[in-house]
C-alpha cells in the first residue's frame, strides 16, 4: 500500500480543514482538556516508532526506535489519563444542592 505524495497531500488537506472546523466549535470551557486530548492523539506517532523498534534491522535503528516508543508511550498514557482526570471534574451541578 504505497502512498503517493498527492494522495498524502489530499489526506493532509482534508484533515486540516476538518480539524479547524471542529476546534472552532469547542466550548472555551474545555480548551485545556482539548489541548491535552489532541496532544494524546498526536502520540499516534507511536505507530511509526513501533515499526522501527520491532523490525530491528540494526542496532542503531532499534535503539532510536525504542527511544521513540518510550517517548510516545509516555505521551499517550499521560495524555489520556490527564484528559480524563480533568474531564471528570467538570460537573454541571452538584448532586446534593439545587
Amino acid at each position: 500500500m504505497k502512498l503517493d505524495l498527492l494522495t498524502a497531500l489530499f489526506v493532509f488537506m482534508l484533515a486540516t480543514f476538518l480539524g479547524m472546523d471542529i476546534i472552532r466549535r469547542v466550548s472555551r470551557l474545555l480548551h485545556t482538556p482539548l489541548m491535552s486530548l489532541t496532544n494524546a492523539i498526536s502520540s499516534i506517532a507511536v505507530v511509526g516508532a513501533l515499526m522501527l523498534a520491532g523490525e530491528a534491522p540494526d542496532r542503531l535503528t532499534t535503539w532510536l526506535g525504542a527511544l521513540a516508543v518510550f517517548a510516545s508511550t509516555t505521551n499517550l498514557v499521560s495524555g489520556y489519563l490527564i484528559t480524563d482526570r480533568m474531564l471528570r471534574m467538570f460537573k454541571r451541578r452538584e448532586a446534593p444542592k439545587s
Partner: protein
Amino acid sequence: MTGTVTETLYLIAAGLFILALRWMSRPDTARRAVAAAVTGMLLAVGGTLISPEIVTYKWIALAAVAGIALGVPLARVPLTAVPERTGLSQAFGGMAAGLVGVAKYYLWLADGQLTHFRMAVVAGEVILGCLTATGGLLASAKLAEWMTTRPITYRGQNIVSFVLLVVAAGLGVWLTIDPTQSWAFPIVVGLALVFGVLLILPIGGADMPTVISFLNSYAGLSAVAMGFVLESKLLIAAGALDGSSGFVLSIIMCKAMNRSVTNVLFGAFGSVQAVAKRAEERTVKSATAVDAAELLSNADSVVIIPGYGMAVAQAQHRVRDLYDQLAKRGVDVKFAVHPVAGRMPGHMNVLLAEADIPYDRLVEMDDINPEMPHVGVALIIGANDVVNPAARTDEKSPIYGMPIIDADKAQTVIAIKRSMNPGFAGIENDLYYADNTLMLFGDAKAVIGDVVKQLSGEGAA
C-alpha cells in the same frame, strides 16, 4: 508496508479520532471523546503489532513499560502544573518524530534507498521534530518556573534565529538534491535543536500559553511529516487534526488579547521597564477581610473574576469555600472567566472545576459584561490586565483594544492582590484607584481563607 487488516484498523482509528474531537466540543459528551480516542489508539497500536514486519517485541515491551512508568505519574501532577506537562508532552512528541526521522535516514542511507523525495520529507520531519523537542522542554521549564519567566532578549535576536533556520533548511534542500552528503545531516539536527531553544528564549512567561498552543501545532505537524516519511495516512490525518487545532487555539487566544500572531512570537512585549512610577502618589482604599466578608454577604449578586494570581496562589479550593458560604446566604455568585486569564487557554475553567465549582456558574466574558452594571460586588482575585479599563479608553495603552471584563461597572469592586505591582502588561490599572474599589492586600489563598473564616463565624472566635 502493512496488510489490509492493519490498514482497516487504521481507518477505523482515524474515524474514532475525528469523532473524539467532535464529542470534545461539549462538556456532556467530552468523556465519551476520551473513550473514543483511547479505542482508536488501541486499534492502531494493535494493528501495528500484528503486522508481519515486526520480528521482535523485546525492545517494544521494554520501551512501553518505561513509557507507562513515566506516563502515569505525569498524569497525576497537580492541575496547576498542567501547562508545563503539556509543554513536556509536546517535547516528547517532537522527540519521537525526530528520532524516527533520524533512524529512517540512516536506514535508507545504508540501503541506498534514499530518494530525493524521501530525503526531503525526512529533513522536514527531523527539523520540525527537533525544534519542537527543545522548544517544548524550554517552554515547560519556563512555565514551571525552573528558569526565569522573563523574556531573554539580545540585540539582533530575530535575525540570528532566522539565519539559523535558513541554514538548517538550506542544508535540508542541499541534502535533498544530493542525499549522499551525509555529513550535513547531523548539522541539520543540531541546528534544529538550537533553533527550538532560540524560538522560546525571547518569549515572556505570560505569553507561554499562546506559545504552548503553537507548539501543539508543531507537534502535530511533526506527526504529519512522519506520516509522509512512513507513507501512513493515519499519521497524516491524526497529525493534521492536532496541527490545525493547535493553530486555531493560538489564533483564538491572540484575538482575545487583541495582539497579532507575529507580535506574540517575536515581540518580547511587556518588558518590565514599562512599569509606571507614579503608583505611590495616588490614594488607594484598603480593606480588611472583615470588611470584605461584610460586603460580600450583603450583596445580592457577586461576580468573581479570577486571574493569573489565583492560579499561582493555587487558591481555587478557598474560592470554592467562599462560593459555598455565599451561596448558603442566598447570594447569587457567578464566575467571569476571561479567555486569556490564567496560564493556558481554558486553564481557569479547569482549576475552578477541580474545586468542584459547577461549570454552569462559569460565564464567558461576552455574556457577563452586559450584566455588570447590575452586579453588587465584583471580586477580582489575582487578575489585573483582564479588568483594566484602559483597554477600553486609553488609546495609548499597550493593551488598548483588548476585550476586558467590565469589573469597573459593578457597584463595588474588591480586588485581591499582594501589592500595587502591575500585571503582565506592566501597566498601571486605574481601576484600583477608583472610588468604588477596595483593595485587599495579600496572597490570594491566605486572604480568601480569612474571608471565609469571617463568614463561617470562626473569625469572630
